[in-house]
């Protein structure tokens, strides 16, 4: 089962912290991939947070197509970050890894942020469509203040490969996944974390209800609900759908993916609304042994899981730095100095929510509301 390591902090830190945490959970991932999503960027991106950043991988042919497309659509390149690749045995380097900062086309300067988000997503999907068949272009995210890195290999070796130990790449929220490839081919678009318009999540556990959930999302008429090379991508899209499209407060993500029984809703003051949500979003009940770690556009991080998850994840840390991980050994590596008695292992009704800047941890109980 995939291993997950998320850290949220009020200070900038290196993704190597996540990778070293993953290394302690090594028996649980098989080197079939690493995914990193960084939010709240520091270093060279610190002053560029309002500009969208495109993260991806291109072949030589692909980068030309990408450049042409971006120019044609009026995006102006402001800054380029590329990792300093160190050859590592077993990792086949691709031509061009990048995080490119763009300025919006002048035509959309006065548009609302929501409209800009639409443009960014459509641009990402258009580039994916151009380069997916021949694998000349992979674009993982295109959004302000977010960078995504994905590659096949062992996480620690990939950290070395990308030179993340010496690079100044830092952020305040970093999600990392060490893949254990199961029922799908090793493919970069199948690698967590998944990101869409400010919402990100990563998951472990197989998704038994994948097909009906995918069909429901794809029939919402929203172009971003596509891909699904991994069954876990739906968890991110459900988060986006509930929070952004339906405008539900974050806690209702739990009520959507793991709804209460009607008899359990009685103690909730919002039971009337809950009943309607349970009915109308019935196909989005995940009904599987999954644990989800996610963040929202404001930097709030959370962990939630289905009652069938036999081994809960863990959330622990100190004020200003919290780790949300699939294994406790990962937390020990990331935040060793802490009061372990305060570690949180969320149970089936719990949703652990960490406020932006890792200021406060709340355990929200679904039964009590």
């Amino acid at each position: 089962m995939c291993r997950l390591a998320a850290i949220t902090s009020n200070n900038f830190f290196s993704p190597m912290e996540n990778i070293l945490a993953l290394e302690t959970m090594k028996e649980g991932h098989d080197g079939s991939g690493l995914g990193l999503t960084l939010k709240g960027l520091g270093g060279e991106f610190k002053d560029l947070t309002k500009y969208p950043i495109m993260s991806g991988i291109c072949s030589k042919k692909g980068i030309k197509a990408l450049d042409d497309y971006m120019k044609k659509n009026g995006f102006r390149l402001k800054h380029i970050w590329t990792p300093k690749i160190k050859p590592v045995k077993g990792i086949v380097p691709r031509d061009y890894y990048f995080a490119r900062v763009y300025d919006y086309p002048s035509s959309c300067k006065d548009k609302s942020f929501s409209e800009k988000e639409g443009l960014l997503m459509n641009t990402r999907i258009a580039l994916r469509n151009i380069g997916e068949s021949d694998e000349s272009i992979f674009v993982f995210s295109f959004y302000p203040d977010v960078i995504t890195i994905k590659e096949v290999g062992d996480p620690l070796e990939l950290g070395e490969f990308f030179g993340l130990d010496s690079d100044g790449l830092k952020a305040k929220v970093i999600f990392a996944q060490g893949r254990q490839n199961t029922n799908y081919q090793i493919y970069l678009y199948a690698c967590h974390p998944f990101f869409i318009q400010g919402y990100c999540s990563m998951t472990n556990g197989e998704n038994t209800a994948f097909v009906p959930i995918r069909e429901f999302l794809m029939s919402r008429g929203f172009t971003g609900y596509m891909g699904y090379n991994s069954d876990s991508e739906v968890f991110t899209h459900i988060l986006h759908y509930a929070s952004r499209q339906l405008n539900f407060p974050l806690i209702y993500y739990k009520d959507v993916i793991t709804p209460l029984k009607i008899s359990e809703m009685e103690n909730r003051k919002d039971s009337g609304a809950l009943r309607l949500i349970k009915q109308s979003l019935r196909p989005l009940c995940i009904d599987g042994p999954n644990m989800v770690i996610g963040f929202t556009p404001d930097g709030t991080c959370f962990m939630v899981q289905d009652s069938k998850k036999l081994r809960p994840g863990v959330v622990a840390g100190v004020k200003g730095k919290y780790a949300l991980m699939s294994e406790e050994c990962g937390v020990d590596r990331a935040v060793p100095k802490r009061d372990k008695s305060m570690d949180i292992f969320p149970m089936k009704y719990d949703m652990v929510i960490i406020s932006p800047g890792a200021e406060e941890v709340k355990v929200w109980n679904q039964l009590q509301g």
Partner: protein
Amino acid sequence: MEPASGLRLDHNHKLSLREFPYIVRWRDDRCKRCGQCTAVCPVKAIEATVKVQRYVSSEGASPAPKAERKVIQIVEQVTDMERYCTGCGACTLVCPNEAIEPEFNPQNKFLHYKNKGGEGYKRGGRRNDPSISTLDRLKFTRISMLTDPALDAGRHEFRIRTLLGRILPPEELPLKIENNKLSINKDSAKFIPPVREIYPIMIGSMSIGALSPPMWEGLAMGVSYLNEVEGMPVVMCSGEGGMPPRLLKSKYLKYFIIQIASGYFGWDEIIHALPHMVEDPAAIEIKYGQGAKPGDGGLLMAQKVLNLIASIRGVPQFIDLASPPTHQTKYSIEEAVAKMIQSMSMAWGFRVPVYPKISGSRTARAVLNNLARNPYAAALSIDGEDGGTGAAYNVSMDKMGHPIASNLRECYLDLVKQGKQNELPLIAAGGVGKKGNLAANAAALIMLGASAVSIGKYIMQAAADCFGDEYNRCNLCNTGKCPRGITTQDPKLYRRLDSDKVAERVVETFKAADVELRKIFAPMGRSTELPIGMSDGLSTDDKAMAKRLGINYAC
């Protein structure tokens, strides 16, 4: 032509027993001539008669044959096609010595002759096709293994429930946010349709009249027990023909779906009972078609219209009660169906889901799309060709109709295309449990996209030992001579049926199906929500079938 004088009359004008669908095997050596078999036979296919037999015997050391003539009593099958043996086997049941048994004759020419007086063969039961149905060719092949732990069907908590009623799309929910909490926006004028949480296997429409009093009562008691004692919200449809007034005014009405069909039988009583109802019914089903006999209306033969039935239905006794093939008010689907749904909804203050039932058809999607645009349509029930009936022409039952599997699947996928797969529940019926695999057939239909399934024939067999099968066994439902007492109004016949036993068997059947559904869902890792549309869980060993249904091919 006159027979030649002195010659024995030949029998060439008679049918031979080889033309009959069942040949009665009677054993002289075992029979004690008690006469029970001939008395019980519902069609008088056998009779006691006498024959003269010639015995040749010899005594002494050397052969000295002596012929002797004796008159013996025998049980003989008649060769009158109007009294053909239906193979019900009631004779075998009553025989104390196992001396008699009907045997299916695959070479029969029954349908060549069963049209006397220019009248086509009418019967009850369902399609006489014993082949393996599509539903029984589907298997569950997505088994959770090491990457995803399977559940324990015995110990894990399962919620096998479904929704009946129009469900609002999430984008249209009348919700508002206050203090980071959602609540229903009461200022919104949005209509919130009624939705029931029910068990996904329903008992389909079988009327009082088609069924005998103890049979209908047994089903009703079983359903009430399942709800009140077992906590299983099983619902049952009344069929066309009303309901007992006492039940209409009782608290148990909430477990019943009341059907209105083209004859409107029983609706006078129902409307008059409306002001006295203490509970709303589970739903209202508007019957437009029946899978067993698409295009035909309901039919209750005169011999079944006795006093009780006549009074519930508000008609005179002993007349054929034929419902027209279509509702007389039906002008177009847009107008008439919508009006009917509106009227029924209005009668109960829009508190009761109202949905149409149609027979499986190539045109089902057209109906579906109309309903999808009607915000008051609560569901669509599709009844496939393997559904049963109390009376119909054999040709309608055997040759008309559409199999449920692909019909249901294409309707579901049509809804998926429109993003309405959760808004308009599909109820699938027709051949569920045909070979006894109730839970497996139900689960397969659910994974193809059904929100619920409906059963009729299966529960008659499981709860009341109906003799019928797909070899035209018995199928006398239309005649009022049901040897089991299930589909008759003759007290001499229906006293054979104990309503308490029927109720007990209904409860046992549903409890067993519930366990079996868990045994299917548990290894597939599903326990919280019904796996509606989880088509990746299914496979078949037929490539064309897999392609048509959009499921896996496995061999």
